[in-house]
């Protein structure tokens, strides 16, 4: 069984034990289950899951932060009379060739307003992204590589 599924089941089990349907008890049960899986790591193969879950939470928080920031930036450009936008298509060289990682990266980039993934090269070496604020293509590349790409690789790798 996948450790994530086991953790969810443990949380449901905890809710059943408490005889409660409150979300608080689900969270509590999930945390207790996570602790149990962490203790189990030397015996069962739950180690990589235990290591990755904090990364996943950090990634979700980082993503929400970027989502709000980018939304406000695009909204500002929509309402100000003078155009601040400098749209352009930027080629982002990829450090990973893993299809799942590229798919996740492309999706989070498209989800954040101000950048849409146009396509990925057939050899998976480059991602082509249309960005709304390209003051300097190098800066945009660096921002994507140090922000989302690094985190996606930490999470999936």
């Amino acid at each position, binding site marked *: 069984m996948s450790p994530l599924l086991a953790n969810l089941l443990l949380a449901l089990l905890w809710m059943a034990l408490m005889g409660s*349907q*409150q*979300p608080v008890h689900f969270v509590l049960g999930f945390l207790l289950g996570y602790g149990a899986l962490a203790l189990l790591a030397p015996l069962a193969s739950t180690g990589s899951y235990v290591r990755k879950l904090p990364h996943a939470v950090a990634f979700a928080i980082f993503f929400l932060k970027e*989502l*709000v920031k980018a*939304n406000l930036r*695009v*909204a500002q450009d*929509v*309402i100000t009379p003078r*155009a601040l*936008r*400098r*749209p*352009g*298509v*930027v*080629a982002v*060289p990829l450090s990973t060739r893993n299809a799942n990682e590229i798919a996740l990266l*492309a*999706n*989070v*980039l*498209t*989800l954040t*307003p*101000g*950048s*849409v*993934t*146009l*396509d*990925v*090269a*057939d*050899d*998976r*070496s*480059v991602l*082509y992204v*249309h960005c*709304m604020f*390209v003051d300097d*293509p190098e800066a945009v590349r660096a921002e994507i590589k140090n922000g989302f790409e690094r985190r996606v690789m930490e999470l999936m790798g």
Partner: protein
Amino acid sequence: MINVRLVIALVLAGSGCLFMLLAGVGLLRMPDFLTRMHASSKAATLGAALVVAAVAIALWDGAVALRALLVSMFLLITAPVAAHAIARAGYISGVPLAEETVVDELAGRYDRDTHELAGTAAGPSEAP
């Protein structure tokens, strides 16, 4: 207590609606189809998520909260796929980019007939 919750829900729903309104205004004001997609993707992500979150907080019910979570999850999964498909189709079919476009490093990379996309070969080319 109930009032505080309602105020929070109202603020969330209000800002969600504001983002959707801005997305609509953006559709009218942006110069080309790709920048319009930037404007409209706000409605699909933050706007919808905020309204759904507002509903969950206003009703304060586990079943509703679970459904709200699922709705925003499905939105987050499906919206970018559709956006990418539309953007790629638009670019390939040759919809012109706005004149203010700074750089187009994708220009000339597509094979005209097969739509195959080359990787790291020639250097970036400037926008027309």
